[in-house]
């Protein structure tokens, strides 16, 4: 188990990994990068004690390492990873693939803002602080990013499943049969 200041690291790992994966669009690179970032954090001399500050610090380390990797590989975006066999898919897999394909089609800026707010769970103020932009810009950027993501999901061949309650509504609708 990591010691005192790093006691939250294990809890952060799933979201750190997902965050890296969204930025890099590659599972193996994301795993290596999180491992490297964690090692870097564990060997750091000065570590934020306050949990929110620690969380922001860890995501910042992963973000910088991801930027480094992207630049080193000279790839704005990687091709999406191959989806698992269609016949082995469960409902959750389809939703995951839908999201992954949508995210992979976003511009780097949009992918980053979605990763920061949706995956890392930063507030608008924290995101603005991290990116050094006004909160209003965060607000408009996340709106545009979500609009683009929805458009990408809609245009993908894999579509999100219709929620069950929508089916019930349709039956009860005066126009439905």
């Amino acid at each position: 188990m990591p010691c005192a200041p790093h006691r939250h690291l294990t809890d952060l790992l799933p979201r750190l990994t997902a965050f890296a994966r969204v930025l890099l669009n590659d599972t193996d690179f994301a795993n290596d990068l999180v491992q490297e970032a964690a090692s870097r954090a564990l060997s750091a001399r000065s570590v934020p004690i306050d949990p929110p500050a620690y969380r922001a610090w860890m995501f910042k380390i992963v973000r910088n390492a991801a930027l480094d990797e992207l630049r080193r590989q000279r790839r704005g975006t990687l091709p999406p990873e191959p989806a698992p066999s269609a016949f082995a898919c469960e409902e959750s897999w389809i939703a995951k693939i839908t999201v992954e394909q949508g995210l992979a089609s976003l511009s780097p800026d949009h992918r980053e803002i979605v990763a920061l707010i949706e995956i890392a769970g930063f507030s608008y103020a924290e995101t603005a602080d991290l990116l050094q932009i006004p909160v209003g810009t965060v607000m408009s950027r996340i709106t545009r990013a979500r609009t683009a993501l929805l458009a990408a999901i809609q245009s993908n061949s894999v579509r999100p499943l219709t929620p069950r309650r929508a089916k019930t509504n349709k039956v009860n609708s005066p126009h439905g049969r």
Partner: protein
Amino acid sequence: MADDRMAAARTDELERLNAFVDGELSADARAQVAARIAADPDFARTHATLTRLRAGLSDYAVSVPPASLKLPPPRRSGLWPALALSAATITLLVVAALGIASRQDSSVHVAATQLPVLPAAFGARPIFPDLAAAGLTLVRVDASQQWPLEHFTAVYTGPRGCRLELHVRADGIAAPAIPFATHHRAWQVGPLIYELFAFGMPAKRFGVIADGAEQQIRALSPKDSGDFLLREARVNAPPCTG
């Protein structure tokens, strides 16, 4: 004109709805948006879509298997810190002595011969400044020879996640796209264009560092581009006919 106003109003209400689902609105604004959702079926549908999207992304975030963490061995205690400190002090003294002996300044000159291959478009030696005074260490210099991105990149890192990139390219070579950079400063010295990028660094600190970097590079470059122009004139000289 009216269309523009309607589009702006639509954007504004969409931004407020996004802020609503993110829990970023004040109580008053929340109440207004909630009332609108209750009254307007289209707005309610958009709200439901955004909520589902957020849920999908949240599910995605927790569905990604976390990286397996291999913890580094614990730091040694006892005599080791003292020994490490002594070794570091000795190394620093040796480096300082060498620096004084060679009467070189602290900036990193990357001679053309030290680089894997100097891109053809480069007419001068790139200079990578020493930013140690700002707590930043030069960790890597990469050379890209893929035209039109024929350029050098120096990466500096520092504590607390700070990171800078200095890109050097010949005048006329297309600027590389740097996603996620939050600050940028460009300047030209002779035939080379230097571009400094920061990622999430406070603007004031970036300004100070960029000033320092630019000053160092200008101070260490040939006084003007005269040398370069003369070399160019020699290389491209047609035969004299007089």
